[in-house]
């Protein structure tokens, strides 16, 4: 029985990450991405996945996805029906599962995923076939069932042999961070000792055209926090983290990649697509995440900003960081990896949690792209070149359409 809860809320349980997998345009897996984040590699190129000749812009950070899939418990038929987003998710989960050493024994392990569009490429195919401008109608049933994110969740459980329950968060671009945060809360409150969490999204024509129509895409280069920034760049990818109680990880003798210390979520009702200019909700999430850990801005060394590169987002976020950090703002390093890998939408929050884990463990800060004059609102130092620095706590922000705001606080595991 899920409810009534079988236990009262006890003293908060410490939550650690023992497995992490990541897929972005920087490459497949931890090593390629760590190298890219550490050096600030830019992974953008011309869009090849669909026709952009009638759009304002034509660049994105596409994943070079292998034709084959990792070896899992999926049948050949299941594999053949997977679309692009699900494949990226599977690769990320496979790396995480191998790293954590969890058993595929059918145990009831909750799965919390974040996405904005699930298997949208199949949704597009469905509509094209339905209106008779491409494809045939014979594949429509598979397109319907595999377009929905439920399918990617079920595939993950079949692949690695665990049994749910499932929660699929669709809070726009904060979804991945919300998924990790909610998973953290499940363990912290004692509701579960282990949770699989992650975020994913693949590039699709519909979403690309949407951001292009809003004139939110940069016609030049995505340069978060530059004064002359002119928009975001879209990317695609996935990240999966396997989270468990510290007690569980220590009992297993599992290597620990980092600790999740806090999570905050809030809603900005200012506008459906524009943040409050003072960053009120962003301020609330940063405060909440740190309050949960019982720390203040003085104890945070680095912020992985949402930093999309749009005029409005970066300005509001810079304002929020400044308000939150006060006098500490001049010391806290800030960068956004979206200049390297693009905005991964539902995947962004989870991938950026993994980027922070990499930096915490490796003693370096993720590098942000851009050499031009920073926005004057940035009272904090931007990380714009490779920087070795041991930091004990990193905060990562994710904000999305609809005013979905989330912050996750991560700690180095000594």
């Amino acid at each position, binding site marked *: 029985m899920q409810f009534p809860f079988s236990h009262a809320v006890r003293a908060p349980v410490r939550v650690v990450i023992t497995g992490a997998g990541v897929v972005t345009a920087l490459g497949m897996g931890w090593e390629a991405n760590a190298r890219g984040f550490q050096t600030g590699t830019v992974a953008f190129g011309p869009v090849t996945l669909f026709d952009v000749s009638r759009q304002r812009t034509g660049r994105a950070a596409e994943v070079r996805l292998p034709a084959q899939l990792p070896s899992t418990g999926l049948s050949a038929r299941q594999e053949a029906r997977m679309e692009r987003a699900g494949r990226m998710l599977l690769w990320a989960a496979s790396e995480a599962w191998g790293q954590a050493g969890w058993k595929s024994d059918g145990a009831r392990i909750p799965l919390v995923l974040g996405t904005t569009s699930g298997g949208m490429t199949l949704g597009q195919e469905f509509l094209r076939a339905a209106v008779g401008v491409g494809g045939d109608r014979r594949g429509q049933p598979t397109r319907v069932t595999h377009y929905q994110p439920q399918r990617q969740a079920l595939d993950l459980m079949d692949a690695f042999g665990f049994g749910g329950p499932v929660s699929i968060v669709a809070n726009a671009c904060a979804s991945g961070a919300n998924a990790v945060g909610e998973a953290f809360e499940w363990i912290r*409150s004692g509701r579960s000792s282990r949770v699989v969490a992650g975020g994913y999204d693949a590039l699709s024509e519909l979403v690309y055209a949407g951001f292009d129509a809003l004139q939110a895409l940069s016609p030049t280069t995505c340069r978060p926090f530059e004064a002359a920034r002119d928009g975001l760049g879209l990317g695609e990818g996935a990240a999966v983290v396997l989270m468990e109680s510290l007690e569980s990880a220590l009992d297993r003798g599992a290597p620990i990649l980092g600790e999740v210390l806090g999570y905050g979520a809030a*809603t900005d009702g200012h506008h459906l697509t524009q943040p409050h200019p003072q960053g009120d909700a962003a301020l609330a999430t940063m405060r909440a995440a740190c309050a949960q850990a019982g720390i203040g801005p003085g104890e945070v060394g680095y912020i992985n900003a949402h930093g999309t590169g749009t005029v409005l987002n970066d300005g509001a976020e810079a304002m929020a960081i400044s308000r939150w950090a006060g006098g500490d703002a001049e010391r806290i390093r800030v960068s956004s990896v979206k200049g390297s890998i693009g905005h991964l939408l539902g995947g962004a929050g989870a991938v950026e949690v993994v980027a922070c884990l990499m930096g915490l463990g490796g003693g370096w800060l993720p590098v942000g792209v851009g050499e031009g004059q920073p926005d004057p609102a940035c009272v904090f130092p931007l990380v714009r070149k490779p920087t070795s620095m041991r930091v004990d706590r990193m905060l990562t922000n994710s904000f999305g359409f609809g005013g979905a705001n989330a912050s996750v606080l991560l700690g180095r595991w000594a």
Partner: protein
Amino acid sequence: MNGIQVLGCGVVSPAGWGIGPFRTAMENGTGLKTVEETGAGGRTWRMRRVPAREGRPAWMLNPRMRRSGLISQYAMAAAWEALGGEGGRDGWEGLGVICCVMGGSVVYSRRFYTEVLEDPSTASPLLFPETVFNAPASHVGAVLGAGGRNDTLVGDQSMFVAALVQAADWMRRGEVKSCLVIGAEEADWTTAEAGRVFRRETVSGEGAAAIWLGRGPGLIGLRRVTEAQVYRRGVTRAEAMAKVRAELGLADGMPVFGSGGGAGVRDLETVFGDGRGAMGGWACVAAADAVTSGGSTEAGVCVAGSNLQGIGAVLGR
């Protein structure tokens, strides 16, 4: 903190706007009238549509609702009713919102993508933001001035029942004081065509349901929610639902509402059509109504989702 109370309910359904017409349709027990609509390729679909609203409610005056789609208006109307028609008052800080959808704003996605296929350079920037799954939840939060937790969950018909547990957990953790759980869906030919993949005779319905949960005093309590039985490979829907029913332990004579729940379950789809994201919510509201306005001390909910999981719940005095 297990004492979770139902503080209010709201419904929009093919029977009309509000719990009154919903209750009448339930009492009549016969399928509401269907309309035939023509989709792409000249194919026709039978649907159960929400009738046009009479008058203009206060919440429609909020600028946020000006360009909102029907799904957002259904969600807002149900939420407003669940809050006792007092959505306009101040003081909703601490109110969480969870909105459950299956297709979500797919009508906007279809409209926008159709424009993209014609010419992406002229596709409307007004449509795209409403395609996002969390647009309805965002509108509800903005209209109510609720700036706290606000999640949109995607799943099948079962998601609403699962969301009751999440709402209870948010309250237990102290993240919210009370929580609106909403299920909403809008129908068009794309959803009708997609719905037939799961069952050929499916008639698409649309609307919303909302339950306002809090610590009380309330009308009735959330007594129990079963584990969600996920349709993993090798687990049939029937097997999953057998586990749900066994765990639920339904007493003889207890009214049970749901969708595809098996023998003894009052199937709401036969009356309202397949409301997808709203389905589990309709079942919960029907159960709550059976307790508050009927003679039952407890009522059950048993929902077999199309493509994710089965789940059950009991509400009671």
